[in-house]
């Protein structure tokens, strides 16, 4: 039983971490229908900058703020330079963001050096405590909490405001939305920046979780995020959350019971979902 609980908690934590990573992607894809393969680049920049500030100032909060800021800033740059010319064209989006991903990743090495860097949780989140025989790692509980928070906030915003509608309409027919008097470019930019900010936030959170950062982790994790987004149904927030937790749990349990398959579990899950439910588990409109 302890084993089970412990696996569940760890699976949940991993899942939340993946969800945070996928949230920005979902937002950008779900609302703007942009396939952003540079997501991983924003993620590592968030991780490196956040960690750097965290280590300089010894304040985790400042680290998080710095990560989000750099995310917003890079989001702005990315949107203006790279994404803007290719709205509405998936093929070009995939291509251009892949190229930009390479640039972002390589620039990390220029800015921070090619070495991997170790990261430790802030004191108040370090270590673990025991409840009965179950080990609870503090930082994981923290992650779970942040994940839920982000989910709730994002869902509220999307439900309540007209912004979601406008963005979706803008994706379908940009000219028409403008002809209705909406500055869609600005709206798109803000949404993209938010997505980028989320990516960067998940970067710093992830850095502290795994204890190490390196430039290549961007691509690695953005693929994971894409897998989750696909499984959940492109653009669905609840879908991403569900899929992320599914993947997290599957990883935890597979690693325990069928370690031979743990390498392939994400890919297998996605393959199965795509074959039997091509639109993802949570289908969304638009």
């Amino acid at each position: 039983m302890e084993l089970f609980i412990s696996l569940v908690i760890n699976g949940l934590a991993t899942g939340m971490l993946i969800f945070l990573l996928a949230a920005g992607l979902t937002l950008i894809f779900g609302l703007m229908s942009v396939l952003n393969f540079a997501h991983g680049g924003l993620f590592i920049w968030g991780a490196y900058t956040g960690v750097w500030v965290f280590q300089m100032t010894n304040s985790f909060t400042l680290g998080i703020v710095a990560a989000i800021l750099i995310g917003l800033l890079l989001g702005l740059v990315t949107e203006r330079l790279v994404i803007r010319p290719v709205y509405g064209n998936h093929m070009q989006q995939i291509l251009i963001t892949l190229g930009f991903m390479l640039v972002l990743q390589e620039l990390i090495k220029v800015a921070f050096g090619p070495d991997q860097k170790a990261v430790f949780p802030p004191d108040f989140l370090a270590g673990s405590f025991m409840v009965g025989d179950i080990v609870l790692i503090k930082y994981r509980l923290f992650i779970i909490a942040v994940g839920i928070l982000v989910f709730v906030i994002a869902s509220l915003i999307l439900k309540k405001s007209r912004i979601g509608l406008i963005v979706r309409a803008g994706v379908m027919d940009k000219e028409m939305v403008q002809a209705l008097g909406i500055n869609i470019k600005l709206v798109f930019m803000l949404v993209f920046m938010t997505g980028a900010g989320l990516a960067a936030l998940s970067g710093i959170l992830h850095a502290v979780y795994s204890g190490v950062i390196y430039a290549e982790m961007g691509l690695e994790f953005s693929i994971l995020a894409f897998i989750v987004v696909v499984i959940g149904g492109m653009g669905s927030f609840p879908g991403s959350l569900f899929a992320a937790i599914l993947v997290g749990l599957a990883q935890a349990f597979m690693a325990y019971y069928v370690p031979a398959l743990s390498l392939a579990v994400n890919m297998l899950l996605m393959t199965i979902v795509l074959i039997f439910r091509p639109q993802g588990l949570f289908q969304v409109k638009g």
Partner: protein
Amino acid sequence: MENLLELKKVEAFVQHYHILHDISFEVPKGEVTVLLGRNGAGKTTTLRTIMGLNRVSEGSISFKGESIVGRTTFDIANSGIGYVPEDQGIFGGLTVGENLRVAMKKEDEKTTERLEWILELFPDLKKFWKKEGGQLSGGQKQMLSIARAYVNENDLLLIDEPSKGLAPIMVDKVTESIQQMKEQTTIVLVEQNFMMASQIGTRFYIIDDGVTVHSGAMDELKEDKQSMKKYLGIS
């Protein structure tokens, strides 16, 4: 009489094709100006150019006395122009209600009133309020597109072939709605249905190959068999 909209010797490009060569016309406030011309003459392009969707290379377009050349589309729209595009521009993935909500600039009482009026005019929209725009029938889409331009209070409406694909009974209704609208708003209408155009129009311009070649009062045109034949092929 004051001209709400004025185009002078406008030349415009679509991508790198020179489509409009010399478009000049005036839209007096409170009237319905009709643009006529055969397929591919440049009527749609003219409306799109006014909306800032095409690049103007020469000439001037002024709205309420101010030049709007080079301004962004949303800016032009916000200065008081509503647009019903030729291809309807329905957001296929949004419901009928959402399509209207995106268009609504304000959610005040007046707007609600207008909305009610519109739904009375086109009961189908009410019936299919929750249906996705993409699933509507051709005519329903047309109604939605017109409705979307009506919900806001605009000074000028650009309407591109509203009768296309509408059942005769609906054509009547749309005609009637435009009649009503023209009390409050100035209208530029592109229309192939000559019957309809001649009913509502006060003044006409004929466009041929990107050039405004003829103009006058609508009533005169009906009599002017020669021009009708020459420019519109109607005999």
